[in-house]
Structure formats: structure tokens, C-alpha cells
């Protein structure tokens, strides 16, 4: 279980304390502010107490963290697009709780020297966890700032020694209509599939996340293992991954299959390239005040300095 994998430490305080509260308190502790705050149980006001998710030990990677106010744990875990559990924003939180994330296997295949089916424990074992605060920009024009816990995807991929033919990496979400009631509806072809070019997958910003706010990922956020690619629209961040395949050709991706004129393979956040039906020039930050919510969208979601070189010479209007 997660206990072994993450050296799960049971939290001594009562379950009334929100993960956000614990998280903020732990942050203060780490920064040496005061132990008093923790003792006082200064819980943040939002977020109902979740089914006590195990705490993850992960230091923040400041180099890869945005210095912006975090979106509340309550909003991050209650406002989700995870069509496997329904198309409503609150469906995932209501309907994902029964998802069994243990045991969990991930199949590695394709253009690699080491392929096979691995347990989640095997997948995670060698990788130290770190925390990264990333902006998340949804193609629907809303955005969040999320403290993920995870490790670079590149570190995992290299373990399997991709061959020279590995030009792309394809990911697959669990397909199990019994556990994922949204898969009984045909809004997307199931299972959900996503993909990255190998250089995108190997980029140091690309993260495999197993937690947020210092705790194991809630099911509705893609437990137990999800992709986070902060310079791309949120739908590229495939959730509940069961297969990773290295391919020579560009793999199919779910939203591109559903509406090829609206969602491309690259899906880089780009204020200059509109969705055919709506402008992508601005976004609404979740949790900001009514009058402060709308703000301009940045090229590559603010990560242009790091990732723009990946697309040098490419026509981003064509390869949207």
C-alpha cells in the first residue's frame, strides 16, 4: 500500500483539520516560523475534511514552483474534469470515491529495452518525491495554482531505456465502466488516451504526480498516478494511468479524436491561438474574487522560457 511506498505517517491531529490547514502549518514549520501554529490547529476555512489521505514527505522544488497564491484544496478537489466519472464539474468528487487504486499496475511497452507490467510500488520506489507549484490552465478558460507532489516523468522513462525509435510516449487511463460510471456514456472514446513527443515527455517540467497539498492524490484528481504538463491545456494531464507506451509514430489522443478541429495533439497553452469557438486570450483564476478572476493567459502558460525552444520553427497556429 501507500504506507510502504511513501513511508506514510499517520497524522496525529484530528480529522477535522483540513489537509490545507495541515499543509500550511507544516509549511510554516518547515520555514521555521513557529510550531505554535500547528499546535493551535489553525485550519484553513475551506475544504471539508477528506477521507484522511496519507501524508507525503516532499520538499518543495523552488526552481520549478510558481510564486502565486495557491488555489484552495476545496476547489482543486471539487471542481474537476474527469469524464470517466461524469461531465459535471462536481461529478468526479461525488462518484470517484469507490475507485480502487490499490492494487494498481502500469504496463510499460513499445520501443523500450525493458517492458512489462509493473506494480505501482515498483514504478514509484526509486523516485524521491518533490513538490512543485504549477499553474494549471484548462482549455475551458479557467485556471488554478496547484501544489503537486510527484517526480519528473523523465526519471521514470529513462529506467526502461527507450530505444532510438521511441519518438513519442503514449499514456492510457484505466477503462472500467463498473468503477468509472462516466464510461457508460459515449462523450469520449474509452479508454482515455494521451501522448507527448519524447522531448516533451523528457522535459524537466513534465511531472508524474501522486499527490497534492502534501497528501496522496484524491481519486477525482487522477489517483494513483497522473501526468502534469504545466505548459499544456489541462486535458493533456491524463489521469489514473495504467499504461505507458513508447512509439515511433504520434499516438492518438482522446480530445483530438473527439473534435480534431478544436483540440490538437500539442495543445500548448497559447493566447494567440483561439479555440474555434472561444478566445483563449484570457482565463478565470479559480478562487480569485469576482472582479479579479479574469486575467490574461500567458504563452505556454507562463513557461515559455523553459519550453518555447522545444517548438522552435514550428507554426503553432497549425500545430495547435
Amino acid at each position, binding site marked *: 500500500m501507500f504506507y510502504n511506498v511513501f513511508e506514510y505517517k499517520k497524522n496525529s491531529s484530528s480529522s477535522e483539520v483540513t489537509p490545507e490547514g495541515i499543509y500550511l502549518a507544516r509549511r510554516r514549520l518547515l520555514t521555521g516560523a513557529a510550531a505554535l501554529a500547528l499546535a493551535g490547529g489553525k485550519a484553513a476555512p475551506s475544504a471539508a475534511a477528506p477521507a484522511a489521505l496519507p501524508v507525503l514527505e516532499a520538499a518543495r522544488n523552488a526552481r520549478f514552483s510558481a510564486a502565486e497564491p495557491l488555489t484552495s484544496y476545496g476547489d482543486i478537489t471539487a471542481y474537476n474534469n474527469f469524464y470517466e466519472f461524469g461531465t459535471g464539474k462536481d461529478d468526479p468528487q461525488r462518484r470517484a470515491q469507490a475507485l480502487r487504486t490499490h492494487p494498481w499496475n502500469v504496463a510499460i511497452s513499445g520501443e523500450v529495452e525493458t517492458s512489462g507490467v509493473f506494480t505501482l510500488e515498483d514504478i514509484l520506489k526509486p523516485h524521491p518525491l518533490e513538490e512543485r507549484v504549477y499553474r494549471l490552465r484548462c482549455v475551458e478558460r*479557467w485556471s488554478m495554482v496547484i501544489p503537486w507532489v510527484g517526480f519528473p516523468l523523465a526519471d521514470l522513462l529513462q529506467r526502461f531505456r527507450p530505444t532510438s525509435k521511441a519518438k513519442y510516449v503514449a499514456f492510457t487511463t484505466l477503462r472500467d465502466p463498473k468503477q468509472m460510471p462516466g464510461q457508460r456514456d459515449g462523450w*469520449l472514446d474509452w479508454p482515455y488516451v494521451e501522448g507527448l513527443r519524447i522531448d516533451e515527455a523528457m522535459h524537466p517540467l513534465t511531472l508524474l504526480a501522486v499527490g497534492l497539498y502534501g497528501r496522496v492524490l484524491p481519486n477525482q484528481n487522477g489517483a494513483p498516478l497522473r501526468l502534469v504538463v504545466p505548459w499544456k491545456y489541462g486535458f493533456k494531464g491524463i489521469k489514473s494511468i495504467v499504461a505507458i507506451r513508447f512509439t515511433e509514430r504520434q499516438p492518438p489522443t482522446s480530445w483530438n479524436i473527439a473534435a480534431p478541429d478544436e483540440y490538437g495533439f500539442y495543445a500548448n497553452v497559447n493566447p494567440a491561438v483561439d479555440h474555434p469557438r472561444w478566445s483563449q486570450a484570457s482565463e*478565470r483564476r479559480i*478562487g480569485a474574487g469576482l472582479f479579479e478572476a479574469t486575467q490574461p493567459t500567458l504563452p505556454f502558460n507562463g513557461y515559455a522560457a523553459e519550453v518555447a525552444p522545444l517548438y522552435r520553427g514550428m507554426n503553432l497556429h497549425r500545430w495547435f
Partner: protein
Amino acid sequence: MTVAKRYRYIWKPLVFVAALTPALLLLAGVLGVAGRRLGADPVEDLLLTCGKTALNLLCLTLAVTPVAKITHRPQLLRLRRMLGLFAFGYALLHFAVYLVLDRSLDAAMIVKDIAKRPYITLGFAALMLLIPLAVTSTQGMMRRLGRRWQALHRLVYLVVILAAWHFYWQVKRDVTEPLIYAAIIATLLGWRIRERQRRRLPVPVTSKYGSATAPERI
């Protein structure tokens, strides 16, 4: 109590309060009072709630005549103007939220949106077409325009189609809800087409309704 008084003192105030309730709930959500809170994306919440309430009220407005005829209660037509005006009010609120909160009054972007985004073009057209209907909704205007009033107010059929289409077109994938609206609108307009066809047939006795507040011909 006469029918006129019952409507004036009971039914109209009740409908007024009912139609105002969604706005009051949103206001409570904005102010964070009475245990109300807007959704995680409050601007989206305001946009959707105002827009859908406008559409609901438009459908209700269009349901008045069929219900009045089928149930033989022509007095129901007394409620129609208020429902229509509330629909216009919510549509205006929806547009205001878009202009101020979603687009921060960025004129260039708004003009581009209306010109370039088909679903916004449709919504904008629907709102513009509602303006003459709202302006000519008074008794005085009704008298002054006479038969032309009816012709003008048939625009509402176009408005409700544009509004539902506007809703359909902005949905990302799951179009269940807009399709439900489409079915309702098809029923409401289909009933009118059928009535019209029926009136063309040589029927010995035709009943006359609709003279209570507005002489709607179908």
C-alpha cells in the same frame, strides 16, 4: 374576487417573486449571505445561471398560450408579459456579467468576440431582438401598433431558437442539457404550427382566446 383582482393581488405578485428568486439567490451568493456561495468559478456560475434562467423564462413565456388554450384559462395570458420581461432582465444580466466580469469591459475583445465567435454572435442577436419586444410590451404600445404588434412579437420564436442554439454551441462536449431545451422549444413551436394548420381547415366553430391582455393570433 374578480379574475382581474385575483391576478392583480395574488397571481402576479406570486409569479413576480418566483421569477425574482434566482436573482436573489445569486445576489446572496455574491454577498456570501444566507449560507449561499457561488461555485468555484463564480463568473461561470453567474453566466450560466442568468443565461439558463433567461432561457427557462422564455420557454415559460411561450408555454403560456398553449397552456391557456388547452386548459381553457385565457386569464393566464395576464402573466405572459411579466415572464417575458423577466426573461429579458436575466438576458441583460447575463450579458452584463459577460461584459464586466468575464471580459473586464475590454471593448476590442468584446467586439471581436461578437463578430468572430458564432455562439456569441447568436446570443448577442437574441438579446438585440428582445429589446424591441421589451420596449413595445406596454399596453399603450400594444394599442398603438395594433396588428403590427403581433407580427413584431412573433420575433420571440426566433429569439428562443437563437438562445438555445447559443447555449448548444458553447458546450464543450456533453450537449444533453441544450438538447432538452431544443425538445421543449420544438414542442412549444410545434404546437403553434399545428394550431395554425388546424385554423386553416374549415372548422364550423372556432374558439377565441387571447384577448385578455394581448390579442395573440397563432
